[in-house]
């Protein structure tokens, strides 16, 4: 083992002395502006709307100004593959789980008062371009009873949803073909769609002004330490603690170890991979150690088409019994929509290429059946994005991991992460700072349900 690289050190020393000499460019200090800091209290992996929301609420709820140093690590600052920018942007309260309804209600409140929450000195106010037209969920005979119970629960939570019979539906929206529809639920207020990109930019701007640090890099490694303890049943449990996060810079091998106290996993579609890096799921199957985070990327297509005789200005976001959904976009009879594929039809999530045959074969027939005007339409463009799909029960994972004690999750929302982001951010900040959920009870969303096999199913997934 070479103890001292003497020649190397001498030449380095000579270079340093040379650079101090007047007239030479100073190479004394390495340029570390692009690197993250060496220490940070909280490292949030993922700079999408959920990660930024957690950062915002951490800074808002901290007890003293400047108490917590927060670092947001985002590997792609153009957000080219992030689910936030590619989202259709809808927000609704029509869920089957009360917590989801509460999250949506809070998020809508947040969006309405966005210029109070995200105001920055000398910054122009945000225009989210919110369209308050509501969601229209159609149910066949099979799903009518479930829809009715759901609506009752939603109304109890404070959402304004109305139930319509096929006749009422036909009268209100004459362009619908009500064949096969037994019941419809229509959101009258606080539902609609908005521009997710402006929310992201607004959050970024505000969060930067609050002192959150940003870094463009990828997390490649966690340095953890283990502690063996006995629980009350006498079993041995291996508790882990993350000490360092290795953040690798883009297009280089350079990395920076960031010492941190808490890591928040808000990596969206890639949270499963990140959890594996931390050793979650590495153990014998069936144990808590062997329970993986069941979040994986699922590709979804969104198509933009033009239909000159299509439904008018009052069109809500319509979700058909077949799973097809669409909404208006702009003033010139353009529509945006798609469909969630069945398990067998799931496309390969390796890239974001669009399958146009999917529209021809699986989306258009149902569209034309439900809205006869859509017989004649022309697809102008399409794009694809990822759902951070929770394969267990299609609901988010929020809160700390039972074994890796300082990793907190905020992902797995399976298509409704954007609309729940403000509420989830607040919940994670509450549990991080206070130890428990205070405003909305998100205990059903903890990680431990995967081990205990308690499914918290969300039925209204679009």
């Amino acid at each position, binding site marked *: 083992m070479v103890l001292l690289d003497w020649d190397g050190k001498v030449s380095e020393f000579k270079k340093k002395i040379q650079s101090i000499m007047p007239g030479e460019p100073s190479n004394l200090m390495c340029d570390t502006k692009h690197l993250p800091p060496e220490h940070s209290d909280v490292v949030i992996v993922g700079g999408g709307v959920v990660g930024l929301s957690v950062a915002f609420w951490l800074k808002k709820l901290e007890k003293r100004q400047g108490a917590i140093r927060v670092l947001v690590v985002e590997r792609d600052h153009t957000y080219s593959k992030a689910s936030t920018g590619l989202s259709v942007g809808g927000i609704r309260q029509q869920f089957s789980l009360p917590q989801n309804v509460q999250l949506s209600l809070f998020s809508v409140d947040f969006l309405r008062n966005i210029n109070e929450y995200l105001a*920055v000195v000398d910054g122009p106010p945000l225009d989210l371009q919110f369209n308050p037209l509501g969601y229209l969920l159609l149910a066949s005979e099979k799903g009518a009873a479930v829809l009715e119970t759901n609506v009752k629960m939603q109304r109890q939570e404070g959402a304004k949803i109305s139930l319509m019979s096929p006749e009422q539906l036909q009268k209100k929206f004459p362009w619908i073909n009500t064949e096969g529809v037994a019941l419809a639920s229509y959101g009258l207020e606080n539902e609609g769609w908005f521009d997710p990109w402006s929310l992201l930019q607004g959050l970024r701007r505000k969060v930067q002004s609050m002192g959150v640090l940003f870094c463009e890099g990828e997390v490649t490694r966690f340095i953890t330490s283990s502690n063996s303890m006995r629980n009350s049943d006498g079993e041995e449990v291996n508790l882990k603690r993350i000490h360092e996060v290795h953040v690798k810079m883009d297009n280089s091998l350079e990395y920076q170890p960031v010492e941190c106290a808490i890591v928040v996993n808000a990596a969206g579609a890639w949270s499963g991979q990140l959890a594996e890096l931390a050793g979650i799921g590495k153990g014998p199957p069936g144990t808590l150690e062997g329970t993986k985070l069941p979040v994986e990327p699922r590709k979804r297509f969104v198509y933009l088409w033009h239909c000159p005789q299509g439904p008018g200005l009052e069109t809500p976001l319509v979700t058909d019994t077949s799973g097809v959904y669409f909404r208006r976009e702009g003033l010139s009879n353009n529509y945006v929509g798609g469909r969630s594929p069945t398990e067998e039809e799931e496309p390969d999530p390796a890239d974001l290429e669009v399958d146009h045959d999917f529209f021809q074969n699986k989306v258009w027939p149902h569209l034309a059946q439900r809205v006869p005007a859509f017989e004649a339409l022309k697809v102008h463009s399409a794009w694809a994005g990822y759902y951070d799909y929770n394969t267990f029960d299609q609901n988010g994972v929020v809160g700390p991991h039972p074994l890796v004690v300082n990793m907190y999750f905020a992902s797995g929302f399976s298509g409704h992460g954007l609309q729940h982001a403000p509420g989830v951010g607040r919940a994670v900040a509450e549990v991080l700072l206070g130890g428990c959920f205070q405003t909305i009870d998100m205990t059903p969303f903890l990680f431990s349900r995967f081990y205990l096999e308690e499914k918290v199913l969300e039925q209204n997934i679009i």
Partner: protein
Amino acid sequence: MRESVRDGTRWWGERPAPSGYEAQQDGGTQGVQAGFELTVILLPQPSKCREHRLAPPHPARDSERRILQEPGSWEFLRLIPPKWNGGKRGFRDLSGVVTPEGNRRKRRTLLQFLSDHFCDMEFLRENVLQKQMQKVSLENRSFTIIQDKYGRDIAGACFILQHGGSVKFRDREWIRSDEYRRFSAEVLKFQAVPVEAIDASGCAINYHGLDNLLPLKKLQCLSLQRCPHVDDWCLSRLYLLADSLQELSLAGCPQISERGLACLHHLSNLRRLDISDLPGVEYPGLTQILVEEMLPNCEVVGTDWTQEGPEEQPQDPASPIHAKPAARDLGDPCGVS
């Protein structure tokens, strides 16, 4: 916020060190770093770089700002790139800050410059804005006491009169408040009489203030002309008045866009809708056509699209054709007498 200021961390404590760890989005130019050292009263802000794209990335600024900006006042604080930042003038040269475009712009850039560099200036500005916003919120409280005692119609009427609007009860004359927002107590006597028409032109009603108006189930005529805080969210609540509302005027409201107008489709009994002069609507002619199609039984008064150009033809030839836009009626907005 005062507590945080008084607890010493901001006035005398150590200044948060500028950290260079933020990734600039496009590696933009760093403006001239300006750190003012004045040993008098004003406290200097940490040095920072100005990037003109987004809001300036303040180095580790941990002040929590809840700036509640009134729609009028945000122009007051617009992000104007300071002209002196080109490196041509020294930062100590205050004369460079004063642009020759008039006193108002001078005041804006000077205030902006001051609040960039002095914590207390910024704090004062934030405070002023917060007070303004709180004023609007306070004015929009619900009149629950009056509601419980006299009923919802009278509570709504008192609310409008307090804001400087006018109210008309059924079979009665218009009641207005005077310039000091006082009104006679005879309003409280109209216990069983429903409110028929409300003229809230120019009133500072916002989303929460509408709570007082929406229970008026017999309201036929509502004028929200030039209300500065009425936006798309407020319009999305108007469906509660669908059974009775026949006339609605939204002319001149700065925050309404075509997305809010689309929510008016619930108002099936609407006979007259005024959507003229909406600065938030980008294509007034096209929007008017779409709204007319959406509300077939309603007369929609807006911009005169028939004179706008050959490309904007009516899509539905059966829709009512407007010869000229109706003049905005300041005195009696509703035809109901």
